């Protein structure tokens, strides 16, 4: 690990000043940052520890919830209101990482965790995300876990979060603060596609700190989070789907579909959602939505299987969500 200096400011104002130091990064739970520092994929010169800032509340806000950025994954998944009103979010968080990691990882940090592409973690391998301009080793390498949607020739990495997939389906917003003030970013606009600059993963500006995630009032309908992975527990998604189906008798009033493990960001399948609106409840309608969700998907060899897997997982998640609604 490269040497760095460390400070833990007493309050937010001091943290927002401290982040202006050369090479400074915020440290929250550290479960991903510290790991990346050990392999020198991250080399901050200065760490500003924000883990004890008073951002640990979950509060009612305009019919929804405001989740403080330092709320741990464990506390988020266990919150009675989240379990009752946003079960897909609770399920998504519980399906990520391990008990120990969820006890430490934070809501803000989860959004900023970086890809688990093995070439990103290997400093001797070319990687445009870690060393811009060096090339993408995954493009013609072993790319079983990589993206099928929204990728570029510069990067085919995927975003690894489960939590963020549910947030995408729930139309959450990210509250960020800097010395210049507070602003809100829609979750759909928070993560970037790789294009030619995969080193830029979010639309955060330098010096901005995530202070909260805001959930709008819970949408009507049954909610499901379905994750497909190589191991039954403690593994990243090959494909995951957050699905919501709202029914009016046998008619689908509305649906939401977000996918994980398939793109550089949580992937919202809006076209598939539109195709379901007003349709009659049937397995065929859900299968068609699955096909629509992967329209334009591109395999890279080892990950070709993900295209059909994603289509089928979408169909199954929608079917399960519809059953929840009927039950």
């Amino acid at each position, binding site marked *: 690990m490269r040497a760095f200096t460390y400070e833990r400011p007493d309050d937010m104002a001091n943290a927002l000043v401290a982040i202006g130091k050369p090479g400074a990064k915020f*440290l929250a739970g550290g479960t991903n940052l510290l790991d990346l520092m050990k392999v020198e994929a991250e080399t901050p010169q200065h760490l500003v*520890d924000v883990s004890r800032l008073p951002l640990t509340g979950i509060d009612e806000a305009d019919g929804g919830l405001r989740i403080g950025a330092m709320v741990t994954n464990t506390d988020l998944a266990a919150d009675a209101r989240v379990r009752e009103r946003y079960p897909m979010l609770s399920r998504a968080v519980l399906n990520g990482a391990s008990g*120990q990691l969820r006890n430490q990882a934070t809501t803000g940090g989860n959004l900023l965790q970086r890809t688990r592409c093995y070439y990103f973690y290997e400093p001797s391998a070319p990687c445009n995300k870690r060393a811009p301009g060096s090339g993408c080793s995954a493009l013609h390498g072993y790319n079983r876990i990589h993206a099928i949607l929204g990728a570029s020739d510069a990067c085919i990495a995927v975003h690894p979060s489960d939590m963020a997939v549910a947030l995408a389906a729930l139309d959450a917003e990210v509250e960020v603060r800097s010395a210049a003030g507070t602003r809100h970013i829609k979750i759909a606009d928070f993560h970037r596609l790789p294009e030619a600059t995969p080193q830029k993963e979010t639309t955060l500006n330098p010096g901005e700190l995530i202070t909260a995630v805001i959930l709008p009032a819970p949408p009507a309908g049954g909610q499901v989070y379905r994750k497909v992975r190589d191991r039954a527990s403690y593994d990243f998604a090959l494909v995951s789907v957050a699905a919501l189906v709202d029914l009016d008798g046998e008619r689908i009033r509305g649906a939401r579909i977000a996918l994980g493990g398939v793109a550089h960001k949580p992937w919202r399948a809006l076209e598939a959602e539109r195709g379901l609106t007003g349709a009659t409840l049937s397995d065929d309608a859900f299968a068609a939505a699955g096909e629509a969700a992967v329209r334009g998907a591109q395999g890279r060899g080892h990950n070709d299987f993900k295209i059909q897997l994603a289509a089928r997982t979408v169909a199954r998640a929608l079917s399960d969500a519809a059953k929840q609604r009927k039950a």
Partner: protein
Amino acid sequence: MTVDVGLTVNGAHHELKVDPRTTLLDLLREHLGLTGTKKGCDHGQCGACTVLVDGVRKNSCLNLAASCAEREIVTIEGLGNEQNLHPMQAAFVKHDGFQCGYCTPGQICSAVGMLNEIQRGLPSAVTADLKTSTMELAENEVRERMSGNICRCAAYPNIVAAILDAGGKA
């Protein structure tokens, strides 16, 4: 640069000056000589380094020592000793919950933290009804909740039996 870290380990307070890069795991092993806590992968993937921080199980390899200032740490040495085993340690002996033993301190600290999480009503990925606030200690729950602790000898059946026994479900 060094940072000052004051923290409590197994009931004893320590004041140390450490390189900011020092993890809680390295502080325990290299600075305090508490080698019960094991370094397995050093990347949060194996759970061998699990300790209790303010009563909550965490991977000590993914905590900077500096971030643990003023925290109360309990390691395997603080749970019990040869004359007076912690009930979880006794259950692991009774059920032969190990072979080589390298993962065992992490398994035991993790299991102690995990039982506490069940008592607090925290759900897991296999909890069927998210709306219930009383969690049942059952084999599938133990397997899911302990998935962050890898045993390469694959003593899992006996580890699960030991934890169920210590949790009163033998």
